[in-house]
């Protein structure tokens, strides 16, 4: 055990950093994920790492835990340079991470989960159950909790599982604890419990790196901050010297406003009116109007309920309350089929996995959502089906040997064309795009944005869910911000700016 730091160090100012990263860079093909990043973690201190999606936080965590190797720069533990060639190296130096979704095993006991992979052994090489249970109990005691170490994980509550995950992370004599959005799936009560544990770890002299989107939590638990933007460390310091506005400004930067401009389109009459849409557990009080040719951006943090709302608008789930008016007529949507029939379509986020049926020929994929329209009395009409497919394949310049080859044989880009084509083939009035450019390189993004503009110009109404601020700012006529399932503001294009949106989404007004 680390006797050197047994006595709590409460003042973060004087001590030397426990871990320091100097000039760390990491590139992937086409992307510079981290660029000359410095960060210092002090014993007994919580440092909050703040940044938008894609700012480089996850890459940093992976370097710290030995999963990625940095291209440049050095890591120092206790002032001595170290290399984390493997995850085991990082563990040996006392670095441990608790991930957003820690992998635990439902059917194993609490103790087994904590020590999986490094369980104490008897001299015959068998698992030493006595030691295993005793050590697990001691570990959980140090977190001041009482969980039965023999209970199966599936019997525990979410909060207790979280404790087990933390205990597992600490079971390797950790001194540096990384928490990657640990509160994402927790209720307020569970967050409070977690914070008590973090407080205890802090008092034990551990250095904690706390990654979160949520400002209130950051201010509550952390003493220091570091802000990342586009792979660079753009600011750091003590939180008590920095107000939220400064941090938001650091986070979003100034350069984002004019990217991806939407082509101006004269907005037409109201097409879709959503009034007080609600779901029992996922969202509530969502109201807005959508006009012809308009792009409504739907912004919020991951888990704010945007996709859930869109899925219920599309009929995948049923709303518990609220009404829907399409072109002046009240409609009810009970299934995706209803939605498609009314001219509302949803292009899901994971277009690779949810977009196409890979074994099916291209033409059948394109016609799939339109079959209700093109078939008569349950019988398909192949000529029409083919004509439809050919029309959209030509429109998107689809590169395929023939329309009868399975979609699975196409390249990713061409599969995307099939997905878009099949939705446009239904001649929709409203199209919901869930993260339309996620995982696409910069060049293709511009093409997608130009295309979305084109659709709006043709009179389609678009709801665009996106977590990328530049995209939301550039493309949207109006932006609806959601936070924890509730509307957090509806902003016009004139009053749009990055800070306002981030403030609304993170909940500091």
């Amino acid at each position, binding site marked *: 055990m680390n006797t050197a730091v047994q006595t709590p160090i409460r003042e973060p100012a004087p001590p030397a950093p426990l871990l320091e990263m100097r000039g760390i860079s990491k590139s992937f093909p086409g992307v510079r994920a981290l660029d000359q990043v410095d960060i210092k973690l002090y014993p007994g201190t919580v440092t909050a790492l703040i940044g938008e999606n894609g700012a480089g936080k996850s890459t940093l965590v992976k370097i710290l835990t030995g999963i990625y190797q940095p291209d440049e720069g050095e890591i120092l533990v206790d002032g001595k340079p170290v290399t984390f060639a493997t995850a085991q190296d990082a563990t040996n130096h006392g670095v441990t991470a608790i991930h957003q979704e820690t992998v635990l095993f439902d059917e194993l006991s609490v103790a087994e989960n904590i020590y999986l992979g490094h369980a104490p052994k008897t001299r015959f090489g068998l698992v030493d159950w006595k030691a295993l249970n005793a050590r697990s109990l001691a570990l959980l005691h140090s977190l001041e909790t009482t969980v039965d170490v023999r209970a199966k994980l599936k019997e525990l509550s979410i909060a207790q599982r979280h404790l087990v995950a933390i205990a597992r992370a600490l079971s390797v004599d950790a001194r540096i604890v990384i928490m990657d959005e640990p509160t994402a799936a927790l209720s307020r009560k569970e967050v409070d419990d977690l914070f008590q544990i973090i407080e205890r770890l802090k008092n034990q002299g551990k250095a904690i790196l706390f990654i979160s989107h949520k400002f209130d939590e950051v201010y509550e638990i952390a003493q220091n901050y570091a802000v990342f933007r586009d792979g660079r460390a753009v600011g750091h310091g003590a939180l008590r010297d920095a107000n939220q506005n400064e941090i938001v400004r650091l986070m979003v930067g100034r350069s984002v406003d004019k990217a991806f401009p939407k082509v101006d389109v004269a907005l037409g009459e109201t097409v879709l009116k959503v009034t007080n849409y609600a779901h029992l557990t996922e969202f509530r009080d969502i109201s807005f109007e959508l006009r012809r040719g308009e792009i409504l951006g739907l912004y919020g943090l991951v888990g704010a309920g945007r996709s859930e709302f869109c899925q219920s608008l599309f009929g995948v789930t049923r709303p518990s309350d609220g009404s829907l008016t399409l072109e002046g007529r009240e409609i009810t949507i009970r299934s995706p089929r209803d939605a498609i029939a009314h001219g509302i379509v949803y292009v899901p986020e994971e277009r690779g996995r949810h977009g196409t049926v890979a074994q099916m020929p291209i033409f059948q994929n394109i016609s799939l959502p339109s079959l209700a329209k093109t078939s008569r009395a349950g019988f398909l009409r192949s000529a029409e089906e083919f004509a439809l497919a050919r029309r959209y394949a030509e429109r998107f310049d689809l590169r395929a040997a023939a329309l009868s080859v399975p979609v*699975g044989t196409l390249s990713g880009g061409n599969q995307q064309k099939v997905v878009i084509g099949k939705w446009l083939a239904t001649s929709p009035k409203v199209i919901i795009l869930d993260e339309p450019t996620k995982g696409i390189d910069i060049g293709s993004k511009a093409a997608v944005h130009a295309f979305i503009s084109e659709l709006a110009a043709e009179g389609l109404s678009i709801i665009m869910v996106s977590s990328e601020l530049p995209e939301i700012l550039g493309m949207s006529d109006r932006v609806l911000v959601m936070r924890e399932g509730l509307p957090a503001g509806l902003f016009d294009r004139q009053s749009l700016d990055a800070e306002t949106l981030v403030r609304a989404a993170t909940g500091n007004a």
Partner: protein
Amino acid sequence: MTRILKSREILLFGIIAILVAGFSSRAPGFAEPKNLAGIFNDTSILIILALGQMAVILTKSIDLSVAANLAFTGMAVAMLNAAHPDLPLAVLIIIALGIGAILGAINGLLVWKLGIPPIVVTLGTLTIYRGMAFVLSGGSWVNAHQMTPVFLNTPRTLFLGLPILGWTAVAIVIIVYIMMNRTFFGRALYASGGNPTAAIYAGIDVGRTRFFAFVLSGALAGLCGYLWVSRYAVAYVDIAAGFELDSIAATVIGGVSTLGGIGSVIGTVLGALFLGVIKNALPVIDISPFWQMAISGAVIILAVIFNARAEKRRGRIILRDKAAKTYQEATA
């Protein structure tokens, strides 16, 4: 893909042809039209059952209860015929289809509404339906002399050299072929099994599609109940015991993927015929029926390996020159 399947179907057809040729060298007369018609007639029930099974397997499910369904329905119509000889055959056939469909619907509902895995549901109903056949009959048999001549003889009536039983299979093949390739339901079967999530987003009710696949499988099993009882002129609790495995084997040999979404009517029919040829040929060339089981088993495993390889081979075409090559092949 159609290409792989087509070549696969041609391959299977070729193997069957070679088998027939080989057997006829040992047993003269084996390849004569009359004998071949006989083999087809013998395989009719398997073909019909396998087509229902295929619809179910396409949706990533499996129906283990088809043979039990067949036994119960067969018993029910046989007893009905014995008790009310004046009921017209058409009514009995409709009743058989109806009972079968209801039993299939029970499977379908359990899978759809309660979300129980199909293999568990149909393993349960397999025993239940057999048990029901026992309860219904009290364990006794319905023998040929209790059945009316129309009931017994209609499927055996020759028409253009083939008994009505064989023609029934032909008709079912055509109907199912049209259903699979030309109707919304058929397309929904492929989509639901191929990518359930994508199917839901495309407006297809996957649960409901699966339900109707079970109803179809059940109805065809019910029809086979009548055909079986009349063909073998007897109804008892244990008829067609284990026959569900033959129906699954036929689909797998025919190239239907057990993961769903892949398979063709022609392939399934050929798969059933393959089993039929082996079953008919082995006794002719003096091979014990026990070998027959081992051979069928080996062929099933070979077919699965073949399927897995065919599915694995489909990679994405990313290389430019390969894309050009496939393009040339396709346009040639």
